[in-house]
């Protein structure tokens, strides 16, 4: 009986200590933020955690610039927030990782501040497709990382790895697939075009797009989940509730490494290649610090670190990287990827969105 109060006291002390500890940990960030700091937007969740642990502290050590990382939602949603904040002259983040579609949409409104390639040491080592420019050649975004969307499956439900996207259309996949719900992030038009129509050229005309959509419509009975939220599908894939679908190669690899019965396969038609740029919004007052950040992030060592720790594919030329062949193969593939027709999502975005919604809802 007499020990009870001391137990309470101990717990309180522990709480107090924990609180004090947390405060001490938080303090340096606050102090550093007063001199040089930068708000960096990266995709929330595992991605951001990984940057917070492996990348940002090293950057602060090397440059003295404190990083306040901001969890950004999926590219399009973040673009809307940046646009609106930009109109009010506010920058929710100085520099953000932006997907290709969002980058291109931002070009239309001159949302991105032009970057000076001369201040980015490894600019020439970045593979050209990963950098986004304005029509007049000004650099709007510098390649950050690349990732693949691949065919993923639950190894318990499917002991044999599938080898083609065409497997989605098989009758035995009824109610078994999880696919991305938006036309501009699922890239299923490109997948269908490459798998059944010999390439993405058919998407150049409206008639061609509708033909591809007809083929996609055959898929509908097989789709159990059209997901907007990654966590929703990841959970279902791990448990086998939805045993097949399209998902990110990097995160699936990490889940498999953690012992979940999942695998990511590059089908023979190729995985979908997509990538992110570092871009600075026009509302940011810290272009110089942001350029320092981008310069730091484009070093070959950092690209290697990202590939090993985050599982993203590098955007730098293969010969400047210090990755072994095995490490490189883990984040990429020799099979020629399906490259999204980004132009469509800017020029025809409303029409595509309308047809797509009618396709999956109707």
């Amino acid at each position: 009986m007499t020990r009870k109060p001391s137990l309470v006291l101990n717990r309180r002390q522990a709480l107090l200590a924990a609180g004090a500890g947390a405060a001490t940990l938080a303090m340096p960030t606050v102090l550093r933020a007063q001199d040089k700091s930068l708000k960096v937007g990266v995709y929330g969740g595992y991605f951001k955690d990984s940057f917070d642990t492996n990348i940002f502290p090293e950057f602060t050590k090397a440059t003295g610039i404190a990083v306040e990382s901001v969890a950004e939602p999926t590219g399009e949603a973040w673009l809307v927030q940046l646009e609106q904040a930009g109109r009010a002259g506010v920058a929710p983040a100085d520099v953000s990782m932006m997907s290709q579609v969002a980058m291109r949409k931002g070009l239309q409104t001159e949302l991105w501040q032009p970057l000076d390639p001369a201040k980015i040491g490894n600019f020439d080592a970045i593979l050209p497709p990963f950098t986004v420019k304005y029509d007049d050649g000004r650099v709007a975004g510098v390649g950050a990382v690349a990732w693949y969307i691949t065919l993923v499956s639950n190894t318990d439900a499917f002991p044999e790895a599938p080898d083609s996207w065409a497997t989605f259309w098989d009758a035995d996949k009824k109610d078994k697939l999880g696919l991305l719900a938006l036309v501009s992030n699922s890239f299923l038009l490109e997948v269908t075009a490459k798998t059944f129509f010999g390439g993405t050229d058919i998407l150049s005309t409206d008639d061609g797009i509708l033909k591809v959509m007809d083929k996609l419509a055959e898929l509908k009975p097989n789709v159990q989940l059209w997901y907007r939220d990654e966590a929703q599908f990841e959970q279902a894939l791990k448990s086998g509730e939805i045993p097949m679908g399209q998902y990110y190669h990097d995160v699936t690899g990490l889940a498999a490494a953690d012992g979940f019965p999942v695998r990511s396969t590059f089908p023979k038609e190729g995985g979908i290649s997509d990538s992110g740029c570092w871009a600075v919004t026009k509302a940011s007052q810290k272009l110089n610090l942001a350029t320092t950040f981008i310069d730091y992030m484009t070093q070959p060592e950092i690209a290697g670190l990202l590939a090993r720790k985050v599982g993203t594919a590098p955007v730098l030329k293969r010969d400047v990287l210090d990755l072994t062949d095995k490490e490189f193969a883990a984040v990429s593939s020799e099979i020629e990827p399906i490259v999204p027709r980004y132009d469509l999502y800017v020029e025809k975005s409303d029409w595509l969105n309308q047809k797509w919604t009618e396709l999956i809802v109707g």
Partner: protein
Amino acid sequence: MSAPARTNASGQAALAFPAVMLAAFFVVPFGLMIAVSFFSREQGGFYTPVLTTANYQRFLSWFFADILLFSVGLSALVSAVCLTIGAPFTYLLSRLPRRSQVPWLVAMMAVLSLSEVIIGFAWSTLLSRTAGLSNLFVAIGLMDGPEAWSPSFTAVLCGMVYQAFPYSILVLYPAFSRLDPSLSEAARTLGASPVRAFFNVIVPSLRNALVATFIIVFVFALGAYLLPQLLGRPQHWTLSVLITDQAVYQSNMPFAAAMAVFLVASSLILVLLSTMFGGRREAK
């Protein structure tokens, strides 16, 4: 509710604060939304303040009419289910001694602290093939193998009723607990069965509370956009889901605003109709 209107100065002053709040946080944003719904969309970009009716024209199609009808129908169904379960439940609850009422009320209100996301994920697990209720039925021999019950229309309905149910109790409870017990006692003395007394005496005398509950749950359900996504198939997506898509993912604010105006207008019309209906019956 039927207190005589106060016309003195202090009464007016007391009204000023809520009026300002209403203007600042409802009238102005709603006005902005209506304005934006007439702006022209810049594809791939944002919008410019050039007046156009294109956004409304785009909405006027069978495709969106279907979705609007489905959204309204679903909300009405959620309201109806909440009332059907809620009214007898609250009636029985209000007959209990006060001490036993409290835990029930606390449990009901606790549901309000759950976010839509948690409710959605919980129901999708509960109705899943791998971890859901059907496994229980298999274990006790009622089913041959586990089945996925989510996504489906039933799953959406269950989730939304679960979420809205506490609100219906919240509106019904005061009315039921104020109800004079002698009403039903009189009915019973005159020979009515408990069920008959409930429908012929209790329900008519509480019509206003029931109509109010229906409207509140209806409007609440009309705004749901997460549960239909988490628990339904695309054909169960409500207009709110499509508005979210346009506003959040397509950055098409003008079209999202136009759709929202339609949604608000149709819910206002339905609310007016139901109050008129409730009011007329009252007057008889």
